[in-house]
């Protein structure tokens, strides 16, 4: 119930722009991108579709909601990016699709260039073996045994040799005969793809491609000549890349690897800088970088946030497994956060560690992109496991509050208190406390007993006095009040409030009486006054109080004339009496205000 309500009040931040449940897209976040490839201000959605997973791979381009073009891809795509490779007008970016060891570049939606990763070094023994095989100097059985021992030594073999090792001894000969004449090559596979601006930070500046490969290396490609500008070795296979900076100036590549570590590579370093290694407790399933923070989602349902230096800021547990992450940087609203697609068919949007929105989807989302689409600024494109395509537009009125929708401490608890700095004095006093703890405690306890005794004595005195007007007079506590004097005495069922109003020489004294008991009425009460008759004259000297109904406030008043013009004042006592009792129920001492003299002539 609760979550339904949240759903209804949070999902109103998004407009449903397009739903296509039969788009039959099989793709992931890395294989989707949004780009203005025609330079006409109408941004297209480019998706590399994995097809069935073994054939029918396509590069699809959507204009608005229509499929605008389709290109067949030879192998499974592992990444799609768009980048500018020249300075020609109009500024149309090229599309790069990574697939196997190749990068296919499309310009104006036409095939433009195919880049092949440089071949890797082949183990000399393996090379030697195949050379001999070409000349039939080696028997298939020996060849297989040698290769097998090579593999067990830990050498990396070519795909051809690996295939050979899988074959039955009977097929070996045929295989070798077919393969032996072709040159032996060892190739790797691209695992992830990114772009890096070359020497300008403009949106449409020329960019290099950054490629992570299965051979634990990262390559930076020159966009014009398509040569390798830089090669960096990593301890493990990179799977996610986040690149920023300029190639010619200063750049930083953050990459998370299959071994559960996040490495940072800076310009000039061929190897990941070890001191910036972040070790995750689980394998990463998504990584985004927002500002200086790195957000990593891992397989154990955790979302972590690190600083650029690798210091962990926080981590939160997600309600379900994380499918993918996407950074949301919505400049018109100045909002930046991270969208997390979860295995329970939700997309949650976090601003820092606070959940600000939840989008419920029909199926598990596997691909997420946020950005420009068509003519809209803030568009979220989602593809699901079942192949649907959803497009949502961020409403202009949407506001992401930092309110924390998830359970746990409120956001206010994380606000830093303005605690003053520790002073030297404080430290000194703490020292003193530490050194004399026992003595201080003893003194305090002794004083405390004394204090309790004194308080008890005073308290008893006050209890007695409140019953006795004469004692009240002697007690210093019987202070006087002029205008409002309120006494809630220990007689619990009567409450009084005395108010003196006026500037003089005539005052009005109001006595408010209230019976506070719930059931009992108060009867036969009298109000009378004690005062200096040379100074004051009361219009009513005795007030008979009728029965008091519980809870009601009764007002009795008397005018008082001040007889002196000398600017002196005195106290007046008010007694609430009960017939048949010699002691007043309540005594009030009022110090009268000074009467204003007749205005000076």
């Amino acid at each position, binding site marked *: 119930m609760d979550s339904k309500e949240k759903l209804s009040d949070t999902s109103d931040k998004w407009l449903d722009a397009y739903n296509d449940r039969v788009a039959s897209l099989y793709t992931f976040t890395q294989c989707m991108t949004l780009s203005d490839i025609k330079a006409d201000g109408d941004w297209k959605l480019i998706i590399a579709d994995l097809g069935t997973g073994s054939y029918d791979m396509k590069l699809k381009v959507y204009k608005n909601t229509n499929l605008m073009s389709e290109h067949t891809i030879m192998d499974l795509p592992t990444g799609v990016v768009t980048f500018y490779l020249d300075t020609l007008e109009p500024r149309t970016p090229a599309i790069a699709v990574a697939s196997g060891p190749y990068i296919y570049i499309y310009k104006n939606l036409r095939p433009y260039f195919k880049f092949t990763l440089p071949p890797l070094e082949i183990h000399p023994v393996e090379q030697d073996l195949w050379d001999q095989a070409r000349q039939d100097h080696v028997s298939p059985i020996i060849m297989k045994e040698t290769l097998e021992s090579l593999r067990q030594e830990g050498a990396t073999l070519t795909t051809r040799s690996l295939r050979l090792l899988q074959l039955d001894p009977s097929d070996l000969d045929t295989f070798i005969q077919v393969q032996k004449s072709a040159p032996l090559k060892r190739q790797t596979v691209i695992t992830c793809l990114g772009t890096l601006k070359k020497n300008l930070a403009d949106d449409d500046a020329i960019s290099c491609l950054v490629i992570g490969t299965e051979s634990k290396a990262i390559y930076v490609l020159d966009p014009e000549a398509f040569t390798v500008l830089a090669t960096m070795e990593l301890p493990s296979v990179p799977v996610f890349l986040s690149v920023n900076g300029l190639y010619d100036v200063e750049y930083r590549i953050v990459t998370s690897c299959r071994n559960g570590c996040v490495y940072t590579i800076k310009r000039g370093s061929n190897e990941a800088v070890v001191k910036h290694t972040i070790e995750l407790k689980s394998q990463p399933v998504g990584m985004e970088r927002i500002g200086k923070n790195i957000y990593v989602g891992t397989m154990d349902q955790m979302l972590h946030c690190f600083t650029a230096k690798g210091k962990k800021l926080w981590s939160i547990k997600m309600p379900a497994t994380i499918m993918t992450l996407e950074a949301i940087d919505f400049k018109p609203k100045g909002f930046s956060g991270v969208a997390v697609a979860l295995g329970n068919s939700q997309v949650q949007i976090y601003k820092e560690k606070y959940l600000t929105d939840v989008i419920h989807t029909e199926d598990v989302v596997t691909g997420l992109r946020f950005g420009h689409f068509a003519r809209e600024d803030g568009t979220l494109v989602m593809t699901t496991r079942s192949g649907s395509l959803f497009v949502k537009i961020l409403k202009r009125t949407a506001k992401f509050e930092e309110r924390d929708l998830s359970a746990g401490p409120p956001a206010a608890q994380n606000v830093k208190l303005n605690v003053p700095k520790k002073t030297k004095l404080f430290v000194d006093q703490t020292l003193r406390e530490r050194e004399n703890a026992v003595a201080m405690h003893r003194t305090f306890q002794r004083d405390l007993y004394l204090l309790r005794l004194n308080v008890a004595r005073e308290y008893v005195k006050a209890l007695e006095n409140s019953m006795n007007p004469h004692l009240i007079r002697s007690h210093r506590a019987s202070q006087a009040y002029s205008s409002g004097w*309120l006494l809630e005495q220990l007689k619990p069922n009567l409450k009084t409030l005395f108010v003196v109003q006026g500037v003089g020489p005539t005052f009005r004294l109001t006595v408010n009486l209230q019976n506070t008991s719930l059931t009992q009425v108060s009867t036969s009460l009298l109000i009378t006054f004690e005062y200096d008759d040379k100074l004051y004259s009361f219009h009513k000297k005795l007030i008979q109080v009728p029965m008091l109904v519980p809870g009601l406030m009764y007002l009795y008043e008397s005018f008082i004339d001040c007889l002196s013009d000398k600017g002196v004042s005195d106290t007046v006592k008010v007694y609430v009496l009960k017939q048949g009792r010699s002691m007043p129920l309540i005594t009030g001492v009022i110090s009268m205000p000074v009467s204003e003299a007749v205005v000076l002539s």
Partner: protein
Amino acid sequence: MDLVLTQAAWTLKTQALTGQVYVDEVEVDEEGIAEVLMDDNVIANVSRPGTSLRKPGTSSQSGPSPGVRPTSQSGRPLSGFVRPGTQGGRPGTMEQAIRTPRTAHTARPVTSSSGRFVRLGTASMLSNPDGPFINLARLNFSKYASRPNLAKALFEYIFHHENDIRNALELAALATEACQFKDWWWKVQLAKCYYRLGMYRDAGKQLKSALDQQAMVDIFLYLGKVYVRLDQPLTAIETYKQGLEKFPGETSLLTSIARIYEGLTEMDNAVKIYKDVLQFDNMHVEAIACIATHYFYTDQPEMALKFYRRLLQMGVYNAELFNNLGLCCFYAQQYDMTLTCFQRALSLADDQTLADVWFNIGHVALGICDHKLAYQCFRLALASNNDHAEAYNNLGVLELKRGHVESGRDTCKLSFNLRGEGFHSKASGVHGGEVNSYHRPVAPTFAGRRSEYKWFLSSEDRHATVSHIPKMSFFFTIGGTAVLSETTSLRFAPSEDRISRDRASGSWENLCDLL
């Protein structure tokens, strides 16, 4: 010859009589009810933020929030130092104004032209059974006006002793004319008369003219006072600053600036100026007290303690000071001194302050979780002062904790009523001996820590009340100071660097000795 001698004797007696009742005009400034409620001098009824003393808190507020540092009824944070005008807030209605206590202790006179000044005059009359020394009705003012020596003494007698402003004004007007408007002293006296009569614009003109002739600290102070009365605090500050250019380091000017900042709730500025004051006069009680109060409410009780101790060393010896020392010791975790200070405060307390001391002891009791002791202390505070709203509030919370919902509710309601109904001075927790402070008030104030009263409003129905209980207990466990108390101010000492570090260690011994 005889005539000259007679005149000398007459002058001497006049001055002697004046001296009996002489009041520092600059310090004493009390707005009467009439001035407050029927104020026709205000330039803008809706002033711009931060430019009016009538709407404190509209400027960029610095310093602790009102939730931490108690404020007076008008919204100004409690000062560390009681002076005329710091006690009463500005009543919103005539009803409130009339009901405000007007005893000899806390009186707000009906108008500033009567009230306290009348009482002074009357008192001197009472002591003179033979009747007045000079019969004003029979004087020929123009004759005296032309004789400067006699006129000045006579003027002061009329002004201070007889408190007859109209005649004083007439004499001053004649005299200034007689000296062809060349004597700045008469212009200042004219301004004083105008000021008393509520003609602030005329007073301002006279003072400015006097300043052109002769720059005097007093004139700057008086001019600033006129601007304050016109509710132009920024102009007043400007005036004081001009004065400071002529008299660098004049502490009375600096203090006046600090007071205005305090009134505008710009506590950081106020404290800065008070620190400047201490650069020039490290025995300035008001500055020390205000700085100490500021530190106390900004969570640095150890600093406050240092300042209060300085006051003690300077010879201030009263209940407020010991109360504040006790509170500071408690919050700075110097427990051994805490209760001793409070005991001392109790023995020194007069009727005005006793309730506050009990209230603060109650707070300490809350801090050590002795609710029974706290209960007794709050009751004792109420025995001393029946309209101590804070004590009612705390008592109500304690009652609720004991499960006495009904009585807790009533008590809290009472507290709310008291606080809400215009018991400005008392309820706001400001207490202190303003009484004897005609010249320079020395008594520090009690400042109070209070919690909010608002949530008691909803306690009309019992369910609401019950549901509030956990909240209250939260107040207690966390703060201990949910509603409490206060401190007084003290005087103090030089800014930090003047109290040398090594003294800090010896200071405890000193304090012990003093106690």
